[in-house]
């Protein structure tokens, strides 16, 4: 399979060649590497790759994309195929990708201001709600153009991560 790591232009082809008692032989980007597995779980792996230790934590694993933290470094790896050519935008604060009608909060916080009115037409990037967390104010912006059907929160309310704040259609 081909992998696109982060913003790197180059695609890396990766495959397992064979496994021996202690090691796994892999081929990545045309080069053979020896991999020694130290710890493995569903989402966490520790291994020595060509004499260097790595710790990987898989945050999200889909058929098209894997989000992981490797040695403290967050990375998104796209599994490359025709189907995944249409890539989702990286989910950004206060917005979600795709055609979802729900505007969700990416942070937990308290609603300190509602900046738009239900029923109004909004443009992507318009501030809908302002949240406060850790003594900071964070504007949650419309994730797409559309009509602001409903605002689901009230001033002063506490919202959790991923709570729906508003509906835009």
């Amino acid at each position, binding site marked *: 399979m081909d992998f696109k790591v982060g913003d790197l232009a180059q695609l*890396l082809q990766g495959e397992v060649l064979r496994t021996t008692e202690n090691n796994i032989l892999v081929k990545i980007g045309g*080069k053979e590497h020896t991999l020694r597995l130290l710890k493995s779980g569903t989402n966490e792996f520790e*291994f020595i790759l060509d004499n260097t230790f*790595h710790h990987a934590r898989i945050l999200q694993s889909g058929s098209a994309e894997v989000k992981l933290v490797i040695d*403290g470094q967050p990375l998104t790896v796209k*599994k490359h195929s025709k189907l995944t050519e249409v890539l989702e935008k990286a989910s950004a604060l206060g917005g979600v990708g795709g055609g979802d009608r729900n505007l969700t909060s990416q942070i*937990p916080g308290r609603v300190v201001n509602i900046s738009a009115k239900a029923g109004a037409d909004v443009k992507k990037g318009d501030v809908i709600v302002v949240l406060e*967390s*850790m003594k900071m104010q964070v504007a949650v912006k419309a994730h797409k153009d559309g009509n602001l059907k409903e605002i689901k929160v009230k001033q002063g309310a506490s919202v959790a*991560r991923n709570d729906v704040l508003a509906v835009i259609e």
Partner: protein
Amino acid sequence: MAMSKKITSILIANRGEIALRVIRACRELGIKSIAIYSDEDVRAVHVKRADEAYHVGPAAPAQSYLNMDKIVEIAKAAGADAIHPGYGFLSENENFPEMCDKNGMIFIGPTAKAMEITGDKMKCKAVMKKAHVPTVPGSDGIIEDVEKAADVANKAGYPVLLKSAFGGGGRGIRLANSEKQLRQEFEMASAESRAAFGKAALFVEKYLQRIRHIEFQLVRDSHGNGRHLFERECSIQRRHQKLIEMSPSPVVDQKTRDRIGEIAVRAAEAVDYLNAGTAEFLRDPEGNFYFIEINSRLQVEHPVTELVTGLDLVKLQIAIAQGEEIPFKQEDLKMNGCAIECRINAEDPFYEFAPSTGAVPNCNIPYGPGVRVDTYLYPGCTVSGYYDSLTAKLLAWGRNFDEARVRMRNALDEFTIDGINTTIPLYKTIMDESNFIKGDLSTDYLDRFKIFDKMNEDAKERAKGKASAAVASILLQSEFVKKGGAQPAAKPVSKWKMRGTG
């Protein structure tokens, strides 16, 4: 007002790393430490380490760590004979020391009176001018007349700032490069102010460019002995929030240190200051220092000073609070090496410093030669959105700046915090950055040297270095799922033996 009552128990009216810091000082002194906790902090580390811990209220600060009545009630019930406010929360609320006093408890900090003066910038400035402490040139108070404004501006020298008395946080500030511009801006600003507040009220102040933020740690006892514990340079800031502090400052030599330190002590005397505090100065590129304010509390960055002086500021605070004299003279102090502090905030530097809260399933706190960490983090803890974003203070000491810097750089690599985003990547970039290494600092350092662009490049570079390992991880995961089925075991698979036969 030289009390001399031996403190035997202290209620800590705070949370997080500073609560833990005070608990440690109490334990060293054999003083009972009494913690308070909100609903959000039931499992916080300060609850675990204190001798006693009392529930103070719901998560919201107003109902917990800012709830003076409740806190004093707990302190009385627990038999505390002193209260340490930490920083933030009630630490600079002048009503709190008064309330402690009324209830027969020692407030570990300045007097209400000193707090009142230092808390009012214009009043404080007036007191300082009287005491010949240099302040930023400008008007002594509100100016309503354009002629007076022009007069003040001519004395201070252009460019000047016009600041609305009703503004704040950067709003209502206008820049004037010449008298002509001043007159225009003054009229416009007055009109605006009159329209909005029914009154024109403006200050005129010299506009200082490319300034450094340099502050002096102060201590003063109830016998009138004042000392400065050298400077800290805190120029690396984002939106007036300090990110990195260090001592010594790269631009302060011993002569300057003695001179400005003496001024700082004089500033403390001018307000009859008590206990630990900080005199903040701005320094312009010509080397002029301007007093701006006294922070009437122990500061976040106090460990920087502890590392270069060897003093324990919290223990010193407690000694002063129980009426002792400061046990050293100014000339006994010697700057030893260099210390740097990075504030590890739960904010995403790649996304406009958005707050990042939640569970921290695991973390690795760095240690080793020259490294100190003050933190409330532990594996399995939670970073709450109810309180500020400071999760840890990472400090590195070295015989000189460069040794401290490389130790900091290495400690940043060792510091891992799962589950949340932090400012660690920003500091990695800064520690490697040539202008930082040269000591070319100013409050606009981040913008001036395009540090965020560099940080993004560094992250990309690091990602590149991890590309093969990332692909290997994904291969491992799919192998794992293949061999282990849909529900793979949490332990290492035995198929791939962990230990070889040699």
